[in-house]
């Protein structure tokens, strides 16, 4: 399968009162046709700004795409006119956001919101658009789609609204859907329903998905390939299976170890990643994860680790010590690694280490 979307050396920055925030700091990755790719990371890692950059929706003038390319179906979206870009959004790339009400207009019926895009993008006649809207609502699980078209967003629950947003995202048969934390605002039983729906539809329709999330469980259920982001950069990329079985970046390993899991015996103690998330206006030299890293060595402070193949192009990690992360690992969950002594001292009384800065 060919490459559908290719993000190349993308840099997006925001100027704030406390300095330049390097939100996305030179990332490259791609999505193949029909593939589901995840962008995982914690708040402030740049995953959402990456999505906004692809859609050219970064809030100006504070935010600015400084350099890079976003090649979609052979065209660099960053070179399109605003007019051309409007035809890409919604028609060629569908969008699903965390909070469905940010995508829905409260004063228009659901039917109008579904048909509007069809009439504008596909020049459908009203009756055809309506028929398609009925079909779409049925596809996302409404049992009485014709009646639902006449209702307003407030008449639906959160889970149902997200189904409507999915229907809108798929309305024009786009080859790619971009989903930013699509189930984060939903309860766990509803989250399961929506994930199943998205998975089934993306397979059936052959749509490629870019899913942006902080939830490692959602990624595991869902993604073919995973990019892990930290402080504006990709720190690891692999197939989902390989990433979870054999993480090669200390941050990925730390994330996987820090969450309690229902499928495993309860552990006496959780293993957090020590320290604080990075301040993007004052990133350390060398590796951004170094202050929190259990595997750090001296040159991590001076030399920024590039993404390199561990062992081949299907699995890359931006860590000088990736081999040691892999070998200490022995299966990611079978016990703690034996890293060099941590810089953080254990605070007494209590066994929580300090969290200065």
């Amino acid at each position, binding site marked *: 399968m060919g490459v559908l979307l290719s993000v190349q050396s993308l840099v997006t920055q925001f100027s704030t009162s406390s300095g330049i925030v390097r939100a996305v700091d030179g990332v490259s990755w791609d999505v193949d046709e029909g593939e589901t790719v995840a962008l995982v990371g*914690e*708040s402030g890692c740049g995953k959402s700004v990456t999505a906004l950059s692809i859609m050219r929706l970064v809030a100006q003038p504070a935010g600015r795409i400084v350099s890079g390319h976003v090649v979609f179906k052979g065209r660099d979206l960053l070179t399109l006119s605003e007019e051309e870009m409007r035809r890409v959004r919604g028609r060629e790339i569908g969008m699903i956001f965390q909070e469905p009400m940010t995508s829905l207009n409260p004063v228009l019926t659901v039917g109008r919101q579904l048909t509007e895009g069809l009439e504008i993008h596909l020049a459908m006649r009203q009756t055809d658009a309506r028929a398609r809207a009925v079909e779409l609502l049925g596809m996302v699980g409404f049992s009485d789609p014709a009646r639902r078209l006449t209702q307003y967003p407030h008449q639906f*629950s959160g*889970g*149902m609204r997200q189904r409507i947003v999915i229907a809108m995202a798929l309305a024009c048969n786009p080859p790619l859907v971009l989903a930013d934390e699509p189930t984060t605002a939903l*309860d*766990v*039983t*509803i*989250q*399961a*329903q929506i*994930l*199943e729906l998205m998975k089934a539809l993306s397979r059936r329709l052959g749509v490629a998905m870019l899913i942006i999330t*902080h*939830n*490692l*469980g*959602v*990624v*595991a*259920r869902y*993604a073919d390939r995973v990019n892990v982001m930290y402080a504006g950069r990709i720190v690891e990329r692999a197939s*989902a*299976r390989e990433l*979870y*079985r054999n993480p090669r970046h200390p941050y990925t390993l*730390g*994330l*996987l170890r*820090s*969450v*309690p*899991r*229902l*499928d495993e015996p*309860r*552990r*006496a*103690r*959780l*293993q*957090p*990643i*020590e320290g*604080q*998330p990075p301040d993007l206006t004052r990133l350390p030299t060398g590796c951004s994860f170094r202050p*929190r890293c259990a595997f750090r060595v001296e040159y991590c402070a001076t030399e920024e680790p590039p993404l390199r193949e561990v062992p081949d192009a299907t699995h890359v990690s931006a860590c000088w010590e990736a081999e040691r992360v892999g070998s200490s690992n022995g299966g990611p969950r079978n016990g703690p690694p034996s890293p060099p002594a941590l810089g953080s001292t254990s*605070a007494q*009384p*209590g*066994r*929580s*280490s*300090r*969290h*200065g800065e």
Partner: protein
Amino acid sequence: MSKVLATSEPPILEVKNLVKHFHVGGGLFGGKAGVVRAVDGVSFFIQRGETLGLVGESGCGKTTTGRCILQLERPTSGSVIFEGADLTTVSPDDLRRVRRRIQVIFQDPYSSLNPRMTVGQIIAEPMAVHRIVTDARARAARVRDLLERVGLLPRHADRYPHEMSGGQRQRVGVARALAMEPSLIICDEPVSALDVSIQAQIINLLEDLQADLGLTYLFIAHDLAVVRHISDRVAVMYLGKVVEIADRKALYDDPLHPYTQALLAAVPIPDPELEARREHAIVLGEVPSPLNPPSGCVFHPRCPIAIERCRVDVPELREVKPGHWAACHLA
């Protein structure tokens, strides 16, 4: 962690038939008048030194239950017996005195900390108001102790909340709660606003404090994996009612209520190979409105095994196995 739970001792907290109804509509802007049955006959107890997890989805009444225990909401009926006193009937003076020993940690540390006060002032203020430490210098010393206890540094006392990260702010929230020397802390989604790498830090901190200070926790959360990790016993709520309550192990290894089973099946596991093999038995539909709850068992419209009786008879919470209670006719 070793916890001695002397079951002969009376529980530190006992909630009996707690009911909280909210009246809605019918006011200035009309709308149909109705009653939201936010908490509809909830009973449980917590032993001293134990952690009871309270799980459920949004709108199940878990937060309202916590607020009723704190008397931030006056219950419609029922009793809340804390250290021997019924908080729903004690005099206002007594309530103030007793209530000090129940503290709360909120979900969003940012909105629960005054942005115009330094961290030191935030922690010291309740000690001054409640005259726990009257001397200003002694208070400052106590603030330093508390900061250290929650893993911060003495110099953090001069910071403002916005100068701290989310995890650090939640540590301030914990220190402020500890300043009142509580015996019971109600933790209302204390880690759900935090990044996963920070969540584990705060959970470990709460566990350490419990071991060192003998604290009792009511841990309200929607994350079933976190609740399993931290709780000794767990209660599951659905539409204002407790549908199951048991020891942690019994509840997670052998859930008896179909809702608990559905919740556990819905949690995605961070392991793609396991997820690929796993059966995803998905519970259909959504939580009905607490304005107009279903007849009989409130879960029956979504229940995969409901029978005719479930539409009619309300299942009582009954002890199906020793210490394991479930509100299901078929359990």
